[in-house]
């Protein structure tokens, strides 16, 4: 191999990379919070809601889980304007991420809810707790404790999947990499650096979520 890697050529672009990194982090945090809220509502609708609502949620979940994220993104960004709903790249990226994580977390949280023994719900109701109180203090409390590891890995998968939003020119970390590569043609160097940044981000997210889990679900 006669080619010499030249990482120094990336230095002048540190601010571009930093901006992309922050964008990716914010995108992940926002879509995690909103996506899990969507997932909780979806899971509750599927298990406790009326039949028709449950079926609509089921179709949503299966449609999202069985199509690639990039197609969902293109559909939202290029397809929806044809119906008169025009979105900026950033809005489309956030929306696609929320819709995607919402579907996956619906399925994960539903599994958690179904693992809660029926007797617990009946016990709660017989103690004159309202339906909402039972859902909040008995069902969701236990469900989240059980599915927390699965949800954590889904968050990391979604974070890595967010690299695709660069394709509609939302300015995330991958977009920064593409931008730099198109400027100085150090393709391999920049993609290696950014890949390692993603790796670090994934490892950090994992340990952060684990620590957070220990605080939220303190052993009783």
């Amino acid at each position, binding site marked *: 191999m006669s080619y010499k890697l030249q990482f120094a050529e990336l230095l002048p672009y540190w601010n571009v990379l930093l901006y992309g990194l922050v964008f990716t982090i914010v995108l992940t945090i926002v879509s995690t919070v909103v996506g899990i809220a969507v997932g909780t509502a979806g899971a509750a609708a599927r298990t406790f809601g009326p039949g028709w609502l449950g079926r609509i949620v089921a179709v949503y979940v299966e449609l999202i889980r069985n199509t690639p994220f990039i197609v969902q993104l*293109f559909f939202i960004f*290029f397809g929806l304007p044809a119906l008169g709903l025009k979105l900026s790249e950033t809005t489309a990226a956030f929306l696609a991420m929320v819709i995607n994580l919402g579907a996956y977390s619906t399925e994960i949280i539903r599994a958690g809810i179904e693992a809660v023994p029926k007797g617990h719900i009946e016990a709660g109701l017989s103690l004159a707790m309202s339906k909402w109180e039972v859902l909040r203090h008995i069902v969701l409390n236990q469900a989240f404790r059980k599915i927390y590891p699965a949800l954590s890995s889904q968050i990391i998968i979604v974070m890595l999947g967010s690299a695709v939003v660069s394709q509609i020119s939302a300015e995330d970390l991958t977009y920064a990499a593409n931008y730099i590569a198109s400027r100085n043609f150090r393709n391999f160097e920049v993609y290696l650096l950014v890949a390692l940044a993603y790796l670090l981000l994934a490892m950090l997210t994992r340990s952060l979520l684990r620590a957070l889990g220990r605080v939220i679900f303190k052993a009783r």
Partner: protein
Amino acid sequence: MLQFSFWDILSNLLIATQWTIVLSLIAFFCGGIVGLVLLFMRTSRIAPLEWFTKIYIEFFQGTPLLMQLFLFFFGIALFGVEVSPWMAATLALTFWTSAFLTEIWRGCVEAIPKGQWEASSSLALSYIEQMRYVILPQASRIAVAPTVGFSVQVIKGTALASIIGFVELTKAGTMLNNATFRPFLVYSLVALIYFCLCFPLSWWAKKIEGRLNVAR
């Protein structure tokens, strides 16, 4: 000017779907073979082999598939070899698939009770023989459902090959959209075709999983 009818769009997409299927099959089978080798290394209890697989898995599970595609596409070119999108996509998807399959299968191997290892080792079976005749036949039973489930991820993963210029379903969709300016129709059809490929597999995986729970 050339006009595209609905059937033109659909038939072109279906032609491109063949490449999605071919790429998925190659990635899945090559990834499976590499994954099996890695599985032997990962469970071998030989420290350097285990460390290598750990780092390998960490890298391929911890970085975006898109980055891996870029790295293969631009990385191999540094050696002076001409890289086609086809080659980069096959390699990246194979390695990516193998990392996930190894982790899935390792979980299945570890689910086999320790007594099976001890019994087979007291029968003087070597490590390879233990795996071949005792552990893998039992582990493969539990492995079917998650493996089929993961094949859905492989099919969805091939969509990213469109970004480095490999013409499969997603790329064909983008090209047809550029030619027809009917994004809503084109991307709906693309999504629908992916759904028709993936949903039967998801459904099948769920069914096998359910059957396994009854047996337990």
